[in-house]
């Protein structure tokens, strides 16, 4: 019997997914629960296991294609039934957390289609926490796909390519839709120059004029080595090279635009004397790393200070609701991590309930799973405030973009020794800047300064002898 595999429903507000990579090809045997395909959603990237044992007959969706949840993606012939029988639909159960069963509704109801994601994974200032792997390392080529092997989507299914924008978040004007249809153009290949990167009618006309519409996309992976390329192809045209936007890049872009468009950002910074903290970490680091495993960074100390300050300033742990401000009773701290595909913000849930040691372990665990793409949906949902260690990249001050719809985002900057005046004497102290972007609809400068000063004071109180347990 042949079973149709559907794109599984993975969460209430997730309405569509993009085929990242097929882990099996037609003809391959596949065991039940064996990873079949990698799916990218606007929350998280996950491997979807096969719900049945059998052999993969046919792929119904191409890599890079974005589909609504519930759409058929493959057919698998099961051993216990003869080939050629009527396909039967199989729902795939996805575990959203290792211990928890699927949180997604089993019913293939389409309610999810009507909901827009209200808490997207808001990438933040475009930087990594200290835990993340150094971004200076040479970017890996896209391991999941050999660009030459797969046919360009436009060449194989022009109609489908036109009908399917690269991500559901791309809005095309009627004029753009009509032109794309008339010329059978995959609009994902057109660079947008309009408001927020919108593809304008003139962009399409220029694209047609350039001749790029007729020619199949030129693939030049060697020339450009796009590190985040997933689907589509790179086109080179005279003076410019066009790199298609990957789904993750698109999601990050949309989230950024949404945040800066809707939230009136205000910004402030303070200097923090972390000499005591530096000494504290130095005094316990060796012992901690021997006993606990994993490295002890400054991050958990900062998290501790931030969550305690959030408790004191509940309007910083809140969202704007037009006619109301919603204070979040839980403190779920998002940590910006540079993952291989782009920025992701895993969340330390109930971060106020951990000791510094507990926070260290939790942060290491999240960053590790972000890098190895093992994050579950729960890991990236429900953040109430975001912390970004831009100092890891050498930054001295930064102006982060708020992780929509949160009330603020805090960055920790490079710690460096500076000459500081104390009691009219010049001292050499370890100094660090904290930078805060906040939603000025929710808080004024007074609250924001109170909050950032509270973080500062807590960090300045940390010194050898402060318990981390």
């Amino acid at each position: 019997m042949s079973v149709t595999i559907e794109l599984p429903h993975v969460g209430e507000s997730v309405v569509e997914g993009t085929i990242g990579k097929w882990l099996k090809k037609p003809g391959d045997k596949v065991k039940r629960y064996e990873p079949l395909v990698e799916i990218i959603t606007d929350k998280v990237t996950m491997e979807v296991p096969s719900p049945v044992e059998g052999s993969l007959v046919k792929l119904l969706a191409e890599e890079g294609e974005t589909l609504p949840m519930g759409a058929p993606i493959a057919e698998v012939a099961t051993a216990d039934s003869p080939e050629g029988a009527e396909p039967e639909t199989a729902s795939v159960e996805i575990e959203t957390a290792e211990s928890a069963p699927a949180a997604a509704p089993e019913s293939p109801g389409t309610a999810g289609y009507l909901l827009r994601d209200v808490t997207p994974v808001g990438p933040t200032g475009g930087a990594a926490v200290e835990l993340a792997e150094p971004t200076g390392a040479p970017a890996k080529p896209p391991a999941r796909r050999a660009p030459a092997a797969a046919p360009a989507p436009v060449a194989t299914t022009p109609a489908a390519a036109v009908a399917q924008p690269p991500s559901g978040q791309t809005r095309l004007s009627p004029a753009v839709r009509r032109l794309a249809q008339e010329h059978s153009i995959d609009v994902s290949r057109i660079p947008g120059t309009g408001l927020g990167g919108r593809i304008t009618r003139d962009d399409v006309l220029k694209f047609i004029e350039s001749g790029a519409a007729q020619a199949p996309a030129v693939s030049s992976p060697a020339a450009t080595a796009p590190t985040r390329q997933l689907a589509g192809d790179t086109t080179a045209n005279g003076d410019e090279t066009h790199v298609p936007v990957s789904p993750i890049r698109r999601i990050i872009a949309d989230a950024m635009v949404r945040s800066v468009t809707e939230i009136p950002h205000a910004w402030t910074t303070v200097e923090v004397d972390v000499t005591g903290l530096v000494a504290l970490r130095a005094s316990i680091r060796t012992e901690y790393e021997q006993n606990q495993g994993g490295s002890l960074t400054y991050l958990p100390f900062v998290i501790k200070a931030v969550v305690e300050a959030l408790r004191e300033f509940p309007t910083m742990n809140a969202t704007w609701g037009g006619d109301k401000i919603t204070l979040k009773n839980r403190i779920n701290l998002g940590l910006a991590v540079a993952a291989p595909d782009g920025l992701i913000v895993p969340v330390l849930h109930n971060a106020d309930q951990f000791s510094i040691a507990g926070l260290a372990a939790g942060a290491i665990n999240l960053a590790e799973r972000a890098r190895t793409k093992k994050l579950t949906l729960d890991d990236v949902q429900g953040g109430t405030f975001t912390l970004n260690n831009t100092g890891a990249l050498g930054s001295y001050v930064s102006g982060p973009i708020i992780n929509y719809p949160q009330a603020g985002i805090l960055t920790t900057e490079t710690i460096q020794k500076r000459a500081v005046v104390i009691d009219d004497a010049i001292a050499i102290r370890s100094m660090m800047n904290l930078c805060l972007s906040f939603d000025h609809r929710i808080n004024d400068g007074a609250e924001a300064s109170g909050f950032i000063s509270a973080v500062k004071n807590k960090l300045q109180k940390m010194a050898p002898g402060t318990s981390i347990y």
Partner: protein
Amino acid sequence: MAVKSLIEAIREAITEEMVRDSKVFVMGEDVGIRGGVFLATQGLSEQFGADRIIDAPLAEASIMGIALGAAFRGMRPIPEVQFSDFVWPSVNQLIGEAARTCYGTNGALPVPMVIRMPYGGGIRGGLFHSQNVETHFFHTPGLKVIAPGTPYDAKGLLKSAIRDNNPVVFLEHKKTYRLVRGEVPDEEYTLPIGKADIKRVGSNVTVVSYGLTLHYCLEAAEDLAAQGVDVEVVDLRTLTPLDTETILDSVKKTGKLAIVHEDNITGGVGAEVAAVAVEQAFEYLDAPVMRICGPDVPTMPFAQTLEDAYMPSPEKIADGLRKLAAY
């Protein structure tokens, strides 16, 4: 060609048509000995006599009713409403009767009359001397509505209106009377009613307007040209019948449409133009349709600051068009 003001062009059109056709006569408040409050009929009383340039009492319902009756009897009256703000007592004669009679009598009683009305603000005229009334007549089938913006268009269209067998509301923006000057041919000419005119050819954005704001649009377009935005300015000239063909051709060309008028935004001419574009050129639109219009307040404010806030200006229009171009 001589350069003339808009009011001179109006006066010429009336004079020429009165010379050409003895059925044409003018009636209104102060039109005779005074020559009209804006001097549109200056000198006509001496030329044509008090029988054809008739000073009327301050009674708009009577002016409109007498003109209507005369039109029924084959005359070609040009009633003048001194300020369009004063038209309301005569609306029954105009909308209730004039607009409907030809249709109601199956063509037996055509109503060949032209109702001239100075309209519009931006002149510190306050509540009762600045109103925009066009939407009420624009909404009424059976009336033709003309709102020229240049002396050339005003003369050519007024002559056509006087020769037309339908009631024509002829709107003259007060601020354009002497502000706007332009070339007017010495020889006889008329212009077709119902044809819009492209006053400036452009490729990036279409802006549709008429009357005074047409000139503001042209000014804004020049401003934007310096910034690399090429604006096409469509002058409706005639509001009814609306020249949808010219509008649609332009929208299809540029993909972006803005409508500018001084009248209140809601349910105005701009709303209709927007609807036409969305209905008939949807697949060509590359941006939401934009309206830059007077706000929905009951009438033109008197205070300078408030009048400025009400009125579309070249700056406000340039601002809007710039956003539309960047969309």
